[in-house]
């Protein structure tokens, strides 16, 4: 059994075995975080790979002020947020110049196939996820990490680099906005 300090030291020497060990230990959680945020298998796989490439390239900057896992998941959250922001910017541009800027619609229906959502709940889950996607990015991230990923407020605050109170406030605002978004969803999908 290798200690975390030893693993970090080996990773800094670009030891391949250690990198494979790290990837195998964290790949599922990293994938789950980015999948839950992006709701698209292809984007999630792509982003998860980018996370580990960044880990490999910038391990020498890791100053051990948190656990290695927290540092990796923070990178995953940041990468997923960047992708969400670029998607939203794209979609805004698409509204202005529809002929010039194609939208990334890959995730449109993917929520219905989220693993583990039981069949009779799929319709409600899909409606909820459509509403979640309309939330501002920070609210969407906090909501997803807590409700879908099952993280604690403290863990979410640490990954989002904000206070627990700020996360609580984000969740409260997310719920208010979700209520409105769901009402709109059912009005338009009657």
């Amino acid at each position, binding site marked *: 059994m290798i200690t975390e300090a030893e693993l970090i030291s080996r990773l800094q020497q670009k030891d391949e075995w250690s990198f494979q060990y790290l*990837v195998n230990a964290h790949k599922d*959680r990293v994938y789950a975080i980015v999948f839950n945020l992006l709701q698209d298998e292809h984007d999630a796989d792509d982003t998860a790979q980018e996370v580990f490439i960044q880990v490999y390239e910038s391990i020498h900057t890791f100053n051990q002020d948190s656990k290695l896992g927290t540092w990796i998941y923070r990178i995953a959250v940041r990468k997923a947020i960047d992708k969400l922001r670029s998607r939203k910017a794209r979609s805004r541009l698409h509204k202005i110049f529809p002929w010039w800027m194609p939208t990334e619609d890959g995730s449109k229906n993917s929520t219905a196939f989220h693993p583990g*959502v039981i069949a009779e*709940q799929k319709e409600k889950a899909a*409606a909820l996820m459509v509403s979640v996607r309309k939330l501002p990015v920070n609210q969407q991230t906090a909501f997803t990490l807590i409700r879908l990923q099952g993280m604690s407020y403290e863990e979410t605050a640490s990954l989002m680099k904000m206070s627990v109170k700020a996360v609580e406030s984000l969740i409260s605002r997310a719920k208010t906005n*979700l209520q409105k978004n769901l009402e709109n969803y059912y009005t338009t999908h009657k």
Partner: protein
Amino acid sequence: MKREKNISLEEHLRSIDSSIQPVTDDFFYTRLKGRMQQKHEFVVPFFTKPAFAISSLLVMLLVNIIVLNKQQSTDTPKNQSQIELFGKEYDLFISTPY
């Protein structure tokens, strides 16, 4: 009415409570390594890039054309007179019995 809406949101939230976490497949590391290798392979020195090669070729061609043009324009009587002057200085144009 307000109560109905709250119940509705809670029901929707419950619909995702049963969801299990998605996992990646067994070939994730293989794909990751492939991408990393590809990334390193594609980091080629700037002078091997086609844009650089083509533009340096064009610059060399341009320099050649300029030099040739210049050479043609200097092949003039002025140059001829310099040759004559050089010949006179060393008596190169004097015919001898040898």
